[in-house]
């Protein structure tokens, strides 16, 4: 943990550079940043699990913030940089969780256990929702209709932002975020049609 590989440092430098460049821009799709953050989150999760095997499952939000500290660290990139970072991180986290759920599904349903990399099998970040795959699908539908709603869910849900932080990150008023959020929750619940909706 204390020893950081050259690869880690390289990643950190690239992130810092991208954030610097993005500082004046809008919150972007995060294409440039996404792979870096994705890698960092995975390697972080592995390192953490190796250390505290069996004790605790990992928490998605914790990982996202730790990734921020490791990649960006002392050089705080300002709010724009942070928005950029967390936007990408939320997306990366969502992707990791979906992959993890897919893998677990394969294992559960008799998939070939031997084919799964042991390290990746251990990478059990706590899924924030029981059925992450269904959620992801529903979310994708929603995003297509209204991309902003997708961003709200990504930040609120996958990066663990509060309503206030989400509002700041998307430059919306708190009221807007709160109102949209109640709609999103109702809409997604309805879409997922959980047990008691009949």
């Amino acid at each position, binding site marked *: 943990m204390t020893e950081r590989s050259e690869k880690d440092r390289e990643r950190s430098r690239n992130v810092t550079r991208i954030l610097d460049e993005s500082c004046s821009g809008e919150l972007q799709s995060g294409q440039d940043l996404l792979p870096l953050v994705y890698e960092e989150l995975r390697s972080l999760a592995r390192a953490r699990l190796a250390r505290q095997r069996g004790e605790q499952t990992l928490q998605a939000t914790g990982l996202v913030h730790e990734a921020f500290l490791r990649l960006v660290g002392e050089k705080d990139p*300002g709010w724009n940089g942070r928005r950029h970072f967390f936007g990408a991180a939320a997306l990366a986290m969502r992707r990791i969780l979906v992959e993890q759920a897919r893998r677990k599904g394969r294992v559960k349903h008799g998939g070939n256990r031997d084919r799964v990399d042991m390290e990746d099998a251990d990478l059990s970040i706590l899924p924030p929702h029981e059925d992450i795959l269904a959620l992801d699908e529903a979310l994708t539908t929603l995003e297509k209709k209204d991309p902003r709603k997708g961003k709200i869910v990504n930040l609120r849900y996958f990066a663990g932002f509060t309503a206030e932080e989400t509002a700041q990150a998307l430059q919306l008023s708190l009221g807007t975020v709160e109102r949209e959020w109640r709609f999103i929750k109702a809409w997604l619940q309805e*879409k997922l049609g959980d047990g008691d909706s009949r």
Partner: protein
Amino acid sequence: MIVRDLSSPTMTEYDLNRVEKLFQEAADLPAEERKKFLDRECDGEASLRDHVERLLARLERDASFLSPVSDRGPFLAAAIAEGPGAVIGRYKLLQVIGEGGFGVVYMAEQQEPVVRKVALKIIKLGMDTKEVVARFEAERQALALMDHPNIAQVHDGGATDSGRPYFVMELVRGVSITEYCDKNSLPTVERLDLFASVCQAVQHAHQKGVIHRDIKPSNVLVTLHDGLPLIKIIDFGVAKAMHTRLTEKTLFTRYEQFIGTPAYMSPEQAEMSALDVDTRTDIYSLGVLLYELLTGATPFHAAQIDGVGLLEIQRRIREESPLRPSLRISTTADATIAQTHGLDSASLSRRLRGDVDWIVMKALEKERSRRYATASEFAEDIRRHMKKEPVLAGPPGAAYRLRKFLDRNRTPVFSAILIAIALIIGMIGTWLGKVQADHNANLAREEAQLTTVALDFLLSTLALSNPNIALNPEVTMVTVLDHTAEKASEVFAGQAWAEARIRGTIGRAYTALSESEKAEIQLNLALELAEKINQNGRANILGRPTFSSFELYQVLWALTNVSFNLDRSNAFEISKRAHNAGMACIAEQHPELAELLGNFVKFVEGGAWSVAPDALDGVEEIFAESVSRSRSTLAHKDPLWAIVADTFLAGGYLVWYTPHEHHSEDFFGMALQIQRKELPPDHPDIAASVVLLVGILNNLGKEKQAEDLIRDTITALRRVHREGAFPIAKAESVLGATLVKQGRFAEAEPILQSSHKAILAMTESTSSWMAVESLMRMVSLYGEWGKPEEGRLYRDSLAQSSAYGNFIMQWKVARNIFSTSEQVLINILDQVNTLCGGIAFPASRGTIEAPELTPLLEQLFAERSRLLADEDPRSIAIARLLIGWANALKPEGQYELRARMAKEAQKILGLNRKAHSVDLAEAISFIADMKRAEGKTSEARKIIREAFRILQAGDPSPNWFMGAAIVRIGRSLLELQLYSESEELLLRGEKILEAQLGMTHNDAAVARELLVRLYAEWGKPDLAEPFKQTTE
């Protein structure tokens, strides 16, 4: 995996925007009106209506659905159970009543011992639950003690089965104070009133030892109680349990730091390295809250803080002054803020200008020592404002301008001025507090005016010297003090109390700057005034302040340092007075500790001068006991620690340059340790103690340790002072000496050269003790380096420097100017010195009997003339030593011995009668004394007349030791009934002494007594009158 029905027609048929619009509008309506609304809006679109209705039905159903990941705990089955209906400990969760960055708050039902509804707050993960619970447990006792109607009780806390910390609190149904005020358009005065009760509640918590640490609107709620607003502060104890120490830089704190709103954070909280957060942090947050209540925005509002980096946010909180509330109002374009007060912007701005501005700004001070000391003081000031009484935070004129002036000039070079001014303001402030506590309003007002006068005066002084400050700060500091000293009696006419304190302060500031002679005058004046005040004060029914024993002690201790620096004949007496005053001060509260410390000093004093090696056996035990008793008796930051530290310093001084000097390492070391703990880090006493300790470590051969210590101190001093400043030069000089001791000459040379230059530039002549000490270091550098040629100039200058009055220094000089090839001479000098009372401690003057001195003297004279020419500057140093030793000897029975020493000195000093007139004349007076004792009066008269002529031909600098010598020669003339000559010298000497030392000084008093005696014997009693009066 179950594949959901993603192709349900209702989901795709309708435009999402339309669905949402209907949903939102309906959701805003009360449930019973929704049906009607949808009937109207979805006329003929049954499936659309059905869809929206189903969405609406979801609205209240599952609060935990999609709640942010971290709120849901680790992925364990138990985590999911913690929704409504779950049971945690004795509590059953009912419904979610709030959620935020911290976690979720549920309304819960407690079953036993009483059935009641409570608020249960479950904290999101991200920190160590065990630690949080442990911290909460530690705080529990204190929380239980809080019992205040405006504080929501914290009932319980623990960890849920899924390992998340939770807190159980009194259930408060209310809105935030800001929301309450704005929604009800509360006028300013009602806002202030409401806020004052918040302060009182916080005060209650502080008294029980609980700091909130997270005061913000959402934690200060207003509920209606019998139709009246009632404040409820929630979350006491929660923040402390949740925040790990900032230095640990845990994920959580970092997360809070960069995501959380720092708007309510005090500068010391914003500074991540800050360790101690105290009650004044809450005062700051209260200030932010009041600011927001008045202006509708926090001092650094979101727009200012967003879009900048974390470091920038920290910097702003630490450094930038927010706009005054009135200015914020008058510069904002938003008229609705004033409307919430029921006013227009201009009226609201006027309403806030003045008192309210100052009250808010005082609470928001960056330096917490400048904020209100307590929440009730804050509340009191608001009440005072509402009653139209003068507020503590004002009158702002001078104090405010001064503070701003200092803020603007907070560069390192200002440390000395800051100390002096802080002392002056501090003392007036302290006393004002005292008076106000006595509810003596008249006196308070009168003295508040005095404060203004004092500050205005200081300001004008500062303005006067302002242009030079940046150029030559040290000189300017002295200039400021000189000016203050000069004007003090004029400005504080009729305010003896203030004058005494100002003079005491100036005296102490001069002391810190090594301006000993100026310090002495001011300190003596302060002492004189203080004695008068204390006499009158007892009879004063108004309860005018007297000098406390602590203040008296401070003046006396400074005077002690100064007196030893100047080698005053009464230095020892003053040190005893200071010591007694210090012990008396401690004894007022802790008699046993005072007794122990007193015994320590007595013990050291008793053994220090003895040459017996076991004379100080047992001192370690007494010392250790004094230390441990002090620690068990005095709390951190108790002002009495200063006296304890000084007592140990005194112990160190007592053994310094004695056979037992190794003990001073412990004594100085302990004093330093105490000062480091109890004084502000840049306090000049700390550097002074380090210089002492390093000096002794050098002597004890612990150069490496000495070097580390002094280098650290220099680094610290550099942060405060500019390069080449006096305190740095002093410390570098000691560092140079340390390097010389280690044989690192080449390294030492540039350091000593530059510090020597700086010291010479600061002190007026080569005779000041700092200059002499520095010269000695130059001499030893080149001496030990084996470069006598480079060192010769310094050596000669040292030998001739007239460190006459300071025998300790003179002796050090003599030891310094000889090289190892002259070791014989050094050995003899050592022995003579020991016989003449060691280093001729002032108290032993004129009392030493040394019958075995004669053969040694012969040896000395022989070696001296063998090694040194009479005109060698080093011979002059020896001649001066001889006069000093002769002064130490008891005259009775030793007249001849004294004369023998005087004759040798005369031989050397006679070569330049003009330059050494006073020394030479004094030497000759010893010869005359001998003749008189032998009954050879006429011969004695002839000799003393010669001394008189030499004195008249010479042109001695009018310093005090010259004055004292002139008085001594006058006394010899008086003994021989040469009245007119005696009169001339006594008058001349008295004048010098009075000017240099002040009327009250012992030496000046001695001169006046001699004058009275002279005129009585002379048959001119009338002339004695002026001297008699002042003698009384």
